């Protein structure tokens, strides 16, 4: 029982990341009709917002202490982060919580990056074939990767979770299942965070006038335009919003996966499978498929399963995608007419 619950938790956790990235991809596709292969790079950029914020907080003063020496006889360098020197205990707490605090930096940065990307490049490809869009956005992703590699190097940069969430949550005790069911705190935080972001995006689209107009535009942009609404501007903002969602997913994932310049590509391929399985243009489908594939991947990694079909954990997502597309060609919740022209 514990093993099954654990795999479900693991799957939900992974699925949260898939769902967040796929949600942004679907938003962009549903509004602008663009297949954005640079979306994984936005996830990676978000992660590097956390890295940058952490680096800023850890700018430090270096003082040589002549009284002390290192084990090899050199004078000891005493390093103190400025933020701790200036703000005392609050500075130390801020440093500890640098990953969640970096959301403050990530939201405006990702919004600007998203809007700049759409206005500066992607809008010129709206009426071009999907193949052109894929090529140009893939090229853009490589450019962003190389810029990050230039400034941050090629190696992963670990980001610690706050001390309070760095340990183990005894989930079993909470639900009266005994002490054996344990799960890392930060992964639980990530799952809750991804659910909150997904909820916020749906609430925005469902319950605000802005969101309603966007949804109407997704169905029939021409009619919305006839009503005198500048739907293009709203779609530009939606592109920025999708970039923020991807960026936030990246920020909070850094304690789980130390970010490097290539991390976006690893998630991008899986997220496209998620979008296709969920149904092109379907927000609900993207979220459902994200969690479903995350859980299936997690179960496929159980030794009992791998003993029957070796290597199944590596191919399960693609296998499920094939089966679903054979039985439901539009995906789980795909809309009629999307990418069927």
């Amino acid at each position, binding site marked *: 029982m*514990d*093993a099954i619950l*654990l*795999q479900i938790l*693991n799957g939900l*956790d*992974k699925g949260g990341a898939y769902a967040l990235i796929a949600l942004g991809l679907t938003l962009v596709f549903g509004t602008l009709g663009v297949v954005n292969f640079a979306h994984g790079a936005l996830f990676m950029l978000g992660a590097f917002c956390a890295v940058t914020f952490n680096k800023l907080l850890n700018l430090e003063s270096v003082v040589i202490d002549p009284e002390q020496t*290192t*084990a*090899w*006889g*050199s004078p000891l*360098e005493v390093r103190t982060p400025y933020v701790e020197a200036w703000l005392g205990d609050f500075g130390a707490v801020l440093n500890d919580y640098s990953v969640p605090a970096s959301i403050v930096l990530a939201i405006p940065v990702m919004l600007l990056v998203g809007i700049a990307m759409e206005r500066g490049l992607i809008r010129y490809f709206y009426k071009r074939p999907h193949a052109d869009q894929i090529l140009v956005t893939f090229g853009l992703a490589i450019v962003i990767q190389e810029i990050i590699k230039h400034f941050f*190097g*090629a*190696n*992963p940069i*670990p980001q610690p979770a706050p001390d309070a969430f*760095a*340990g*183990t949550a*005894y989930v079993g005790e909470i639900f009266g299942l005994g002490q*054996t069911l*344990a*799960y*890392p*705190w*930060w*992964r639980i935080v990530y799952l809750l965070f991804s659910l909150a972001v997904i909820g916020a995006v749906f609430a925005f689209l469902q319950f605000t006038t802005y969101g309603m107009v966007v949804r109407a535009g997704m169905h029939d942009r021409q009619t919305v335009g006839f009503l005198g609404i500048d739907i293009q501007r709203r779609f530009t903002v939606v592109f920025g919003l999708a970039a923020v969602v991807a960026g936030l997913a990246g920020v909070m994932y850094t304690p*789980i*996966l*130390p970010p490097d310049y290539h991390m976006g590509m690893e998630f991008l391929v899986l997220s496209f499978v998620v979008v296709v399985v969920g149904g092109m243009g379907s927000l609900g489908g993207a979220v459902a498929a994200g969690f479903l594939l995350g859980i299936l*991947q*997690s179960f496929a*990694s*159980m*030794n009992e399963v791998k003993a029957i079909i070796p290597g199944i*954990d590596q191919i399960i997502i693609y296998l499920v995608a094939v089966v679903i597309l054979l039985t439901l060609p539009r995906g789980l919740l795909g809309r009629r007419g999307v990418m069927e022209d």
Partner: protein
Amino acid sequence: MKFKTMNRRLFLRNSAIAGVGLAAPMHFIRGAYAQDMSCNVPTGDTVTFGWSVPLTGAYADEGADELKAFQLAVKHLNGEGDGGLIATMKPTALKGNGILGKKVAQVHGDSQTKTDAARDNAKRMIERDGAIMISGGSSSAEAVAVQSLCQDMGVIHMSGLTHSNDTTGKDKKRYGFRHFFNAYQSGVALGPVIGEAYGKDRRAYHLTADYTWGWTQEESIKAATEALGWETVAAVRTPLGSADFSQYITPVLNSGADVLILNHYGKDMVNSLTQAVQFGLRDKQVNGKNFEIVVPLFSELMAQGAGDAVKGIFGTSNWDWKLDDEATKTITKSFGAEYGTPPSQAAHTCYVQALLYADACERAGTFYAPEVIKALEGFEFDGMGNGATLYRAEDHQCMKPCLVVRGKQEPKDKFDLMEIVQVVSRDVTTYDPSIFGGELGPYDAKQC
């Protein structure tokens, strides 16, 4: 005019004189002729070494430290700095004025912790840069691939951090030499210590990096623990360079195992150990015993990456900067003054390899590879930080003591993360070279 009749005695005398007369010049030019037949013999006033080190990928931290060590070694060989281990090495022909009167130059490349990139590096450095010796690497897959290339090209490979039994076992090469210890020696050293600490009735679960080093590490530590009476519950392979090990760790929780053995190194080990601790493994009680984690190959660099997770964890090391001998103090001081950190075991082994190669050239009196190989084979030395060491001729594996270490509970600073539990003597770690098979291959010199 009367001619002397040629008799048997006269014929033999004249033949001997003629033979000596013809052979004498060959004696004086033999080196020159041989050197012409060898790859990249230096003709100018410098000799070039090539470092192929992983500056990216799972073993990038080790690679960066290796490169620092090589650069320091070159400084010392050229007579700059404090001379480092040249002063403590015994015996040594090094004088701190280069090698055979030539200054040492160096080139390097990023092997990316990838076999094909490592081979490309080595080939480029040999063919384009004229490197006469290649060293470096933090992965056994790289070492095996590069020493094979070096054998084909007639260039000596002094491997850096490589711990697979295969490097000097089934894949050993005449042109490949390893100073670092191996997985078999880790198993022999660590087995009795963890048997003493955790008892004889244990159930072990292995997570293993899926390449030559992981396989032989798993094989060796399994042999050692099963000899203690431990049962192996499962041995699961993980891809090199995985960052998220959660899918491999969750099955451990309900496997009935009470020990997790992480046959991982570098960032793989940092990630897998940290995540295993986050999943509560070290707080668990299984089969009425505390759940334990063992990391057979351990280093200070990994301990820095894993932080508190390493406390109390057993492993083995080739060398540690806290050893109390004169050579260790010397290299630690020298490296610390240059870079502000103590050398890692990867840095130490690379530094020593560079000096050993240079010393062998000096002793051989030539850069001609077969002669240098012969100077290294069976060479017995001391004063390099590991105690009395033999470069065994049969497999080119150094025979020396190795260390059992444990993550320190109360570190004094960020470099004081491991304590030495036991120095396991060379007698214990020495084994029959035939157990791993393989053939060294010919001495033949080649022109590249």
